[in-house]
């Protein structure tokens, strides 16, 4: 019996049946078929507990949402304390929490002028694209093939057709896609001078973290400036120290005109996102500040949490820890690749953002399952199932890192077995 006070379920099976009946039958059956039928019950630190009681170490982190782990005690304390004073607030009016958080964010990126808040990454992207259109008075948006920026109207149109066509939300006339790591292709489409923005994840997550070639992003930014197009960095998965530095673009020597962040900004306990714009792009905030409105965007509770998230990320101990974790997995995964070179063929890494490549079109699905069976939860890349997203948190400690590596090693024979049977089936 799973009695939660407000509701109760007899068993995990009971829950799965209800979830399929009332919530999302597609997702319920997908995970069952994938061999990873997780229903997260308790969660604490970097651990998830399935309803069955099985413990999993979380390396999915929902793209960095749980950068500090689940329910980090300090962040929980901040939110609880915030609830004694604030609620979501009234988005029409200036607010202490929003002003303080906006200032805190702008100070992390001094060439930026304003922080515009949303409640999720897609909303922040939406603001970014609208802002670019405002600033350029152009309509076209360029993104990369297999890029991913969210599921709302404009953001979903920048992404893979898997998510747009089903809802008739693809808009090929205005939304153009070019191959990643190909600045020539970008220049082709910018040349007409009618593109408002080029939006790109600093390292494309859902595509499996392919690393930008040396100089690629800088070249894209320069091309944008040459043709009067705004360069937008999507930092939803690469921001917040995940690449070893506060914002991923800083590590590539960029100065985006606009960048967006979300996920971990709310510490995994209160949703908030932000679109950061420079002075030129932020003109609409003077002309008509109410041109974009969001009741839950920039909720004061989220601002209080986000303010603390940034403060924590700026601590020297956290910065040092990120480097230790990154170095540990750089070495550890190189060792694993040597030991399992028949299936494990590549590591893409920057900071604690890792993509592990397996030598099979669905390799990461099998590895994800094998890891799940060995107590580790890491998800494959939706748009390149050869690649496992492997996303350690920024405050992981040395013992847990070692345990993750040991479990990874133990999971490889099972992954090999799954892949063999998969190959036969295919």
């Amino acid at each position, binding site marked *: 019996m799973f009695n939660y006070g407000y509701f109760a379920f007899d068993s995990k099976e009971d829950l799965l049946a209800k979830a399929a009946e009332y919530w999302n039958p597609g997702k319920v059956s997908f995970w069952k078929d994938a061999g990873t039928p997780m229903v997260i019950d308790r969660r604490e630190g970097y651990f998830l507990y399935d309803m069955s009681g099985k413990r999993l170490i979380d390396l999915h982190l929902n793209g960095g949402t749980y950068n500090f782990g689940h329910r980090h005690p300090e962040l929980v304390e901040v939110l609880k*304390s915030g609830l004694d004073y604030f609620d979501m607030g009234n988005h029409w009016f200036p607010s202490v929490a929003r002003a303080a958080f906006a200032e805190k964010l702008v100070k992390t990126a001094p060439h930026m002028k304003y922080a515009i808040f949303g409640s999720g990454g897609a909303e922040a992207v939406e603001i970014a694209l609208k802002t670019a259109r405002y600033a350029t008075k152009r309509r076209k948006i360029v993104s990369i093939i297999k890029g991913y920026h969210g599921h709302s109207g404009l953001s979903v149109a920048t992404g893979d057709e898997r998510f747009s066509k089903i809802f008739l939300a693809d808009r090929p006339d205005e939304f153009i896609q070019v191959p990643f790591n190909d600045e020539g292709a970008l220049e082709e489409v910018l040349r007409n001078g009618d593109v408002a923005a080029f939006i790109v994840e600093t390292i494309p997550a859902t595509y499996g973290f392919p690393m930008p070639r040396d100089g690629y992003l800088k070249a894209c930014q320069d091309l944008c400036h040459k043709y009067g197009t705004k360069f937008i960095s999507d930092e939803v998965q690469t921001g917040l120290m995940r690449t070893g*530095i506060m914002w991923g673009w800083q590590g590539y020597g960029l100065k985006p005109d606009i960048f967006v962040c979300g996920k971990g900004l709310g510490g995994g306990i209160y949703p908030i996102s932000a679109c950061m714009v420079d002075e030129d792009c932020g003109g609409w905030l003077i002309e008509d500040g109410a041109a974009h409105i969001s009741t839950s965007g920039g909720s004061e509770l989220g601002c209080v949490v986000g303010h603390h998230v940034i403060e924590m990320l700026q601590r020297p*101990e956290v910065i040092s820890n990120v480097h230790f974790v990154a170095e540990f997995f*750089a070495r550890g995964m*190189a060792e694993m690749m040597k030991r399992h070179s028949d299936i494990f063929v590549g590591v893409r*890494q920057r900071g604690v953002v890792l993509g592990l490549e397996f030598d099979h079109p669905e390799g990461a699905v099998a590895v994800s399952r094998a890891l799940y069976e060995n107590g580790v939860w890491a998800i494959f890349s939706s748009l390149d199932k050869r690649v496992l997203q492997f996303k350690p948190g920024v*405050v992981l400690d*040395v013992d847990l890192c070692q345990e993750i590596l040991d479990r990874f090693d133990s999971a490889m024979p099972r992954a090999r077995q799954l892949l063999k049977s998969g190959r036969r089936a295919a």
Partner: protein
Amino acid sequence: MSEHMTFDAPRLSVPDRALSSARMKVGRAAWAARYYRSFSRDAVLAIAEAVARAGYEKAGHFADLAVAETGFGVVEHKKIKNELCTHTLLDHYRDLDLVTPRIDAERKIVELPKPAGVVFALAPATNPVATVYYKAMLAILSRNAIVISPHPVAKSVSVAAARHLAEAAEAAGAPSGLIQCVEEPSIPLVQDIMASDRINVIIATGGTAMVRAAYSSGNPALGVGPGNAVAYVDPSAGVDAAARCLVDSKSFDNSILCTNESVVLTLDSNRGNMERALRSAGAHVCNEADTDRLREYLFGKGSLNLAAIGKSATWIAERAGIRVSPSARILVPVVATPGQDDLLFREKLCPVLTLTSAVDFQQALTFAKHTARRGAGHSAAFHGDDTARLVRFSQEMPVYRVVVNAPCSQGAAGFATYLPPSFTIGTGFAGRSSVGENVGPQHLVQWTRIAYGKDVPADLSGIDLSAVSTDRATARAPVAAPPPERESFDRDALRQLILEELRSLQGAGK
């Protein structure tokens, strides 16, 4: 008007950032320890040398800051103490190899050193910088990482000193985070970290309460408590030499060391001589009225007046209302009979040395034992040539160091004797501590013993122990991009490369 408009207190409660950051320091130290535990002896010594050099260079600077911040002690003496914890300390332990596996072919035993991991160290207000230096050096030599929690009244200088050593260590190849210091120490913070399962051992130097808390934490601890040293001057001693030792010891850093003599005890027949000798050595020997004034000033409120700690003799005399020569180096109140109850027989941590005398050696011994119970397990001094009495004294006294014909401050701490130089003086079972020696790096390492059966053949010479400790270069080489294999492996060049890479990594984080 709302209450919020009248008070300036925060309207939201804010998590304890100091505690949170201290916990993160422990995590960082665990990372450093993980890498450092396999460093080679050469790499360890190179780091120790670099830290000793850096510490020595700034010994005076930090002595200045320590006295300015705490108001305790004498700058020039603190400088000496700081210096002693650099090259002198390293020289003492240079040949104590805690890194290389040991092979005992005859007993068929191989021993592998296993460092503790993360050392959590408490430092007192009285010797802030010397303790930071000393404990950091112990950690380095034993291949441990250390997080130091300074006394709150000495936090700025302690943090600065620890940072200075940490930078030198890192520049010499140590992992980042090997030496850290808590910036905002507090009692709840110390209790929280002491009880944490992320630390491996506590070294607690401080007051009784802190030491007991360390032992109650559930973690392994090396706790050392306060002292109350008795110096016995036997009639066989040259009184002038003994008096010089006593005055030197008591005036050193204004008696701030826990090893300093608290009481000087002689026989009635020798007391006149002793008074004269002390006077000529620079002491102000108090008459009865002065003695009363001093007692009132130091212990008028029942416990030691903290304002007097580490202050000079003339400073104390002025406040106690005693007229002394400006050249007076110590104050000597005289208690005619060695009773137990006089407050002046307690630990004083200032240049006040209580003189008393016994009718015979037996009474002297009885009194000395009782007095030493207030600083049980600590130190005592003996002046004289009568070795029979020396042995009896040492056998009966509940102390683990008896310094002979030398100043006890510097003697028990290993700077005027051949004892190990230390600012953590083990007070042993008598002082409810797990360690009775002067604490050294060997207390922070344990050994895994590989033991063959007595009657089974064992070829220990064939055992390859090269993987047990690796050179820093090979340990830290990024495996993601392994350096090309070369016939002539240029270790120094590689080490340099890695250092540069680490620096750039740190730079990127700023």
